[in-house]
Every structure is written in structure tokens, then in C-alpha cells.
């Protein structure tokens, strides 16, 4: 069985698992939304201020709170199940791909949910919906892969994974925020799209190449 098929099976069942807990929809989206709600309480509720900081705050919330999505319970299966998958000969790269893909889809959902909240609360000027439709998945994919690697390396260990993710996610944040700003100003954003794409490629390679080593290290 090819790695792709294994990954596809695992992805399907992971999503089914997540749909039942509903952790992302019921917990993380509200969590991100509350963050966007309290920020104006801290910085001021002037409409022009909020309109200008809205998109930036949104991306910061996506970055910092989105990590929670990648560390969800369903991403770290129980040790016995992992052992069973190892014995079945499931390729570690397939497990990485499936977990990262599931996280990416859930992050996309998170981005959309929290994005709607931001638009309502901050009333920013949003331009370039077409490009944004590209930026959102690129960000989701990058964060998902980074979070999955961090989760494997910390073996689901609390606050450590977010600490590992945050500094390395700077290019993702910059790419997203600068692209959004560039769309608003009507300047070129190609370089930022390239940054996001490059991050995704680097992390995909890193994740697949190190998957086997990380699997050994969890036993």
C-alpha cells in the first residue's frame, strides 16, 4: 500500500474523530474570538484604530492560538494505537502527512471562523478576496506542519510545543500580515506569497524526512 493511501485512510478517520469531539469548533474558535474581543478593551475602541490593527491582530491570534489546534487531543493518538500502526507497517511519513493535513483543514476552519469575528468587531478594509483565498490555506498548511513536528518532538507536552512553534512561525506571520496589508494598499504581494509557499515546502520536506526518526524516539 502506498504512503498516500495510508495517509488518506488515516486522514479520514482523524477528521471523523475530531468531528466527534468538536474541540476546534466548540472550543478553539471561541477562544480565538474572545482574544479578539478583549484586545480592544486593552488598546482602545476607536474605529480607525481598530480598522488599522484588525488584520494584524487577526494574524497574531491565528498564529498563537492556532497552535492549540495542532496540539489537540486527537493529533496525539494513544501509545497502544501508535504501536499497532507501527506493527502494521504504516509509514511514519504517512502518519505525519495525515496529522498535518487534518490540522491544516481544521486550522482553515479556525481561520474562517475567527476571520468573520474580526471583520465584525474591527471593520477593516478587506481587499483581494481572491488572493486571500490563497493566503489562508498556505498559512494553515505551514502552521499545521510546524505544529505537527513540534507535537511529535515534544510528545504532546503542554506549553512546550507552542514555544517551539512561535519563533519559527515568524515568516508565516510576516507573509500573511504583509500580504493582507499589501492587498489593502494595492501593492505587489508576490514576494510574500512566495515566502509562505517556501515555508510550506521546507516544512513538508523536514516533516517527511524526520518522521521516521521521531517515531523511533517515542518508544
Amino acid at each position, binding site marked *: 500500500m502506498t504512503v498516500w493511501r495510508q495517509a488518506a485512510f488515516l486522514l479520514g478517520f482523524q477528521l471523523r474523530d475530531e468531528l466527534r469531539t468538536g474541540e476546534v469548533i466548540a472550543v478553539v474558535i471561541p477562544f480565538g474570538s474572545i482574544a479578539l474581543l478583549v484586545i480592544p478593551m486593552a488598546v482602545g475602541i476607536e474605529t480607525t484604530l481598530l480598522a488599522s490593527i484588525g488584520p494584524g491582530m487577526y494574524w497574531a491570534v491565528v498564529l498563537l492560538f492556532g497552535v492549540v489546534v495542532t496540539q489537540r487531543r486527537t493529533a496525539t493518538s494513544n501509545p497502544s494505537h501508535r504501536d499497532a500502526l507501527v506493527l502494521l507497517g504504516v509509514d511514519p511519513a504517512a502518519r505525519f502527512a495525515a496529522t498535518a493535513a487534518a490540522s491544516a483543514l481544521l486550522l482553515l476552519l479556525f481561520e474562517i471562523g475567527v476571520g468573520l469575528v474580526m471583520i465584525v468587531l474591527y471593520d477593516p478594509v478587506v481587499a483581494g478576496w481572491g488572493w486571500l483565498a490563497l493566503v489562508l490555506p498556505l498559512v494553515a498548511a505551514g502552521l499545521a506542519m510546524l505544529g505537527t513536528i513540534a507535537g511529535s518532538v*515534544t*510528545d504532546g507536552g503542554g506549553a512546550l510545543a507552542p514555544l517551539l512553534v*512561535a519563533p*519559527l512561525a515568524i515568516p508565516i506571520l510576516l507573509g500573511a500580515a504583509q500580504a493582507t496589508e499589501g492587498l489593502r494598499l494595492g501593492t505587489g504581494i508576490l514576494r510574500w506569497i512566495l515566502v509562505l509557499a517556501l515555508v510550506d515546502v521546507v516544512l513538508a520536506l523536514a516533516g517527511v524526512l524526520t518522521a521516521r526518526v521521531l517515531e523511533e524516539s517515542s518508544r
Partner: protein
Amino acid sequence: MKRPIEIAAAGTMLTALVAGLAVPPDAVQGDVQRIMYVHVPSAWLAYLAFGVTLIASVAHLRTRDLRWDRRAGASAEIGVVFTGLALATGMLWGKPVWGVWWTWDARLVLTAAMFFVYLAYLALRRATDDPVIRGKRSAVFGIVAALQIPVVHFSVVWWRSLHQPPTILRPGEPQIDPPLLFALLMAVTAFTVLYAALLRRRVELAEAEDALLTTARIEEPVAGSAVVGPLSRGEGA
């Protein structure tokens, strides 16, 4: 018991200290500029230590030799100290020169980002007891971080190039007179020798720590012998 490298480190540091204090002050910034003799070598060491961590991480994954893992960890520890020193001296320099503790200069931001990556790497190492597992996980994170850092680098540089006003005084960039250059090079050399000496000591310490945990001792009791309780009939001790 001092080794040649440690004597060399002490000697070069002393020379650099004397040179740094003896050379004339900068024409524009005055004595404040002498912080550069600590700031620049610290920043250089931060990158050197990070590079050593990367090389050692790759070597560890290829050879599975724990010695490489210890070198990676030791280098990161030294690196985080000097990165912190670079940031602190940068701020101490910046306050009198720019009037603020922090500017969003690309290099400063990158140094700060690297500081946090190091901290995360060290936190990861502390979180794992088993040297073998620690080695693999740290090596993977070290390599992923090293692959990402160039992307972090030019994304930050591009970002700042959009907003940087052109007339900011950037310390370290203007022409530097020969005596000051000499003092600077002395400092860089001294710090590098110091790094080598510290690395060696720290690796030895790590070896001793791991040996305590992993050397099999014949007479050592098995973990299970700690369990005391009624044995079922037929099970001998």
C-alpha cells in the same frame, strides 16, 4: 587543572579587555561605543554556536553517536548566553545612541528570534530524561529550526526594508579606524577561544551526567526489585 585552551582563553580575553579600554574612543559616539567590543563578538558567537549545533545535530542523526548530541546541546547553551548578551549590550548601546531600548531593526529582531529558538531548543532538551530519545528529538528540532532560520531571516529583512527610514544611524556600519578595528578583531578572537574552552568543559560535564544515568553496573539491582509484596505460590525471589 587548567588546559592550554583555557589558558589561551584567559590570555586572549585579558588582551582584548586591555585593547578595548586602551584604544581611543569613537569620534562620534564616545566611550559608549566600547560596548561594541562585547556586542559584536557576542553576536558572532551566537551564529557560530548555532552553526555548531546544526552540524552536531546532523552528525548525531547520521551516526547515532551521543557525543554529537552532547556537543549540540553544549553549544546551544553557550549560544543562548551570548545571544542574550548580544541583545542586552545592544540595548545598552541603543539607549544613549538612539534614545530607545529597542528598535525594530532587522538584525535586532532576528537576534531576538534566534534567542527564543535557542530557549525552545534547550527547554526541549530539559523535557526528556532518556539521552537517546533526547538526542533524536533535539536533533530533529535543531535541523528544522536551522532550515527555517534563513526563511525567518529574509522575511524579516524584507519586512524592515519596506518601512526602514534611510537616515537611521546604524552602529557598526560606518568606517572603522584601524586601532578600533584591531581591538574589535582581538575581541572576536578572544570570544571565539572562550567559546571553544567553554564548549569543551560543558561537553565533559554532559558526558559525566549521561554516564551517571546510563552505565550498566553489574551489581546494580533491577528496577523491579523495588517492588516488595507477597509472591504467589511457586514464584521464587
